[in-house]
């Protein structure tokens, strides 16, 4: 049976983990490579890096981090943030990323998704959709890390990225992100039902029950969270054991 994936996400800015603290074992709390290794050793099903570096000059920093991480972590590695060109994707994949996540560039030009999935295969193209609720059961797509509003309907856009070759959708609720009040389950459900590719839930996790809701109520194939893991509130192991106790299929470590 296919297992639901638990994915810790590391926000990286200028080569350092943002929000990354509290691991007793860590020598350097801000080192993304070391933190990724801890997650991987702890049984994470995938590792996600989100590069939130504002300037283009520092793009090489994330490449270097990916290169080092890929030599130590033997689980899938997804990298997003500022992926705008085929060359960006090539650079990340060559450095050892398994998938790239495309956000703003997909909204600006859907052909980019098509071209990328044709060139590299759908298996490595994730489209990240940031959505915000505008009325009951209606969401609009946001870009540039949630700063810019578009008039694009999120559900329609999700269908469009599927048609254009995306292998997965990383779906973040802008309303919920950072609130610790749980995923936008209605959003997840709406998009998961209208598409036939796996959905990764993101934005709003504060408790382990939120992960449960994302999978059971939202229909997500995978759940992504950042702060509950970074601040050491829960380990990956705690998380999986809890979900297993609630009959969610998960991969327990080394099994």
């Amino acid at each position, binding site marked *: *049976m296919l*297992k639901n994936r638990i994915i810790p996400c590391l926000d990286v800015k200028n080569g350092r983990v943002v929000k990354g603290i509290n691991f007793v074992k860590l020598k350097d709390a801000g080192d993304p490579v070391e933190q990724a290794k801890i997650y991987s050793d702890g049984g994470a099903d995938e590792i996600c890096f989100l590069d939130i570096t504002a300037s283009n000059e520092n793009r090489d920093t994330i490449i270097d981090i990916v290169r080092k991480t890929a030599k130590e972590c*033997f689980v899938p590695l997804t990298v997003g943030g500022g992926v705008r060109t085929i060359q960006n994707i090539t650079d990340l994949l060559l450095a050892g990323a398994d998938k790239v996540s495309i956000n703003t560039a997909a909204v600006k030009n859907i052909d980019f998704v098509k071209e990328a999935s044709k060139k590299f295969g759908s298996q490595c193209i994730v489209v990240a959709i940031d959505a915000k609720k505008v009325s009951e059961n209606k969401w609009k797509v946001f870009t540039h890390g949630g700063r810019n509003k578009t008039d694009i309907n999120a559900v329609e856009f999700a269908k469009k990225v599927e048609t254009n070759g995306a292998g997965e959708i990383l779906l973040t609720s802008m309303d919920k992100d950072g609130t610790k009040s749980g995923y936008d389950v209605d959003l997840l459900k709406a998009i998961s039902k209208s598409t036939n590719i796996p959905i990764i839930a993101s934005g709003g996790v504060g408790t382990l029950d939120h992960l449960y809701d994302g999978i059971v109520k939202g229909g997500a194939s995978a759940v992504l969270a950042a702060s509950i893991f970074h601040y050491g509130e829960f380990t990956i192991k705690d998380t999986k054991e809890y979900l297993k106790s609630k009959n969610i299929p998960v991969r327990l470590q080394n099994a």
Partner: protein
Amino acid sequence: MNVTIVDYQSGNISSVINSFTEVAKGKVNLEVTSDIKKIKSSDKIVLPGQGSFKSCVDSLNSINGLVDSLKETAMTNKKPLLGICVGLQMFADIGYEEAETKGLGWISGKVSKINNQKGKFKLPHIGWNEIELQKESKIFKDIKNKSHMYFVHSYEFIPEDKSVISALTDYSSKIVCAIEKDNLFGTQFHPEKSDKNGLKIIDNFLKL
């Protein structure tokens, strides 16, 4: 021992290189190349593959003499060869991804889209799934039945002779996820991304 990872410019093979490098450390001489001479003189071959069946076959064929030298090494000289993902699928006679495409024809069978029961199951089949061992296979030494491996694919290899199947996985139906026939090995899942179990499989292959 010389082990060659065939680099035929198809898809991303960095993870394959990283994991084999990790396992091979100091024990094995690892080459990443499409150089025909090196392939012919290597003791073992790893054939990765990402993207579509058609794009992988086209890439193999675009390198002059590559298919023939792989055939000579694996089929005539019986050197162990491990196909990963589309690398395994290409063993088949024919594949139907993108367009009907002739495969290497090393193991009779076809590669078709996974029947996802009219959308009841999402495709690609992405994530960790258990493998159900079907027979003893050298690359599964010390791998427990129902171990988890990382999958990402929408197409499956259906061999004519079921005795080549060394493992299945359960998704929308039972999917062939590993084969062993003489010196030919293949995994539909990605051992290079399957954590410690995956590294163990790589180690088993390198120790053959």
